[in-house]
């Protein structure tokens, strides 16, 4: 069950808790088995499974607490900021500190964390992400831009902390 590993990894990133992630994955497969008739052959099976997992999470106690909210500002048309020559990521690569990136991902708001994980870890296309999160592709792109900007800022702050000996 190869998708199983990826789903579990994604569930842990969503819940930040081993037991909750295990319950979430178990519930996801249970729902998939029961609702397999609703899966339309020829459509994206992976996006379907991730959508079940995410929707299950959002209706769980932790998911409700996380309070994924949509900004009242339009998410469309988000400008993409240029990356400055000395970027947090280039500095990061000099130091090669994976833990720092993990912490920066953990600190992202849920709506940014999930989109960046689906794109860069699960390597989903914008279309697949749109199907999984039930949002338009334009929103996927603007959320990704915001998520990556927030990630750069987060990594930058951590590197600055290391520089200052914190």
């Amino acid at each position, binding site marked *: 069950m190869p998708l199983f590993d990826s789903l579990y990894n994604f569930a842990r*990133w969503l819940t930040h808790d081993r037991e909750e992630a295990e319950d979430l994955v178990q519930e996801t497969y249970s729902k998939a088995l029961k609702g397999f008739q609703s899966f339309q052959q020829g459509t994206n099976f992976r996006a379907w499974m991730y959508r079940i997992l995410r929707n299950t999470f959002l209706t769980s106690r932790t998911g409700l607490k996380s309070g994924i909210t949509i900004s009242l500002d339009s998410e469309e048309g988000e400008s993409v900021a240029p990356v400055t020559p000395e970027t947090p990521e280039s500095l990061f690569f000099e130091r090669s500190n994976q833990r720092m990136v993990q912490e920066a*991902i953990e600190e992202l708001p849920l709506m940014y964390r999930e989109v960046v994980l689906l794109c860069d870890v699960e390597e989903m296309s914008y279309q697949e992400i749109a199907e999984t999160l039930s949002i338009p592709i334009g929103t996927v792109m603007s959320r990704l831009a915001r998520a990556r900007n927030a990630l750069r800022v987060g990594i930058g702050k951590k590197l600055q902390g290391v520089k200052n000996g914190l």
Partner: protein
Amino acid sequence: MACDSWRSSIAAYADAELSSSEMRAVGDHLRACTSCTSDLLARVQLKRAVKSAGKRYSPSLALRQSVQKGLPSRSNVAWIWNWQTKLAATAAVALILFGSVYGWSSFERKRTFAELADLHVATMASSTPVDVISTDRHTVKPWFQGKIPFTFNLPELGNTPFTLEGGRLSYLDQVPGAQLIFKIGNHRISVFIFQNRQVRPFMLNDSRSRRLTFNVETWTADDLRYFVIGDADANDIHKLSNLLRLAAGS
């Protein structure tokens, strides 16, 4: 400021989300703009860092076994095991497993091609794209001796539109291999060669693809796995692939 209009395109380029014509337009701009090339490199680096850091958690064996049984542990719901539910559950599990295996294979193929596209883009963005600079195959091929655990043949490029620019060591999943850079017109093409058994052999079939908006062709010969990738026309990628196939068979 003049590059502001390219930012969103470069972000989509890094995510391999552009059409081939858009890729060419961005590629042309990148060749002339060091600022945007640095921007692209930083984006690719961030993607790779997130990919590496994001694969963090593994499920326990107990959870795997529990889910594999296809029976969620629910104490408050009675599970009626008549022959109809057994049949339906078996069919559903078989379909899910088939879908999973198929999805996994497709995912692994995409992952491999995405990694190669990253390597190609990073090479193009590098100030030193090749470690051995030569148009002479008799100089480039011997340079790899002792650096990779196999050897390969390079084609004679006289009377062809292709030029060999050099080569460098490359790694795919920590497996060493050769990366050769060829030029046709203003386009550069990377040829990656790895030992076939080391690079997900069950996930890769001989194929031609445009799924990443790069054109990619892959095949095996003499236990080596070849990947030819670039933003050149698909016919040019195929022509170079055929030259390499002929050289491998000689």
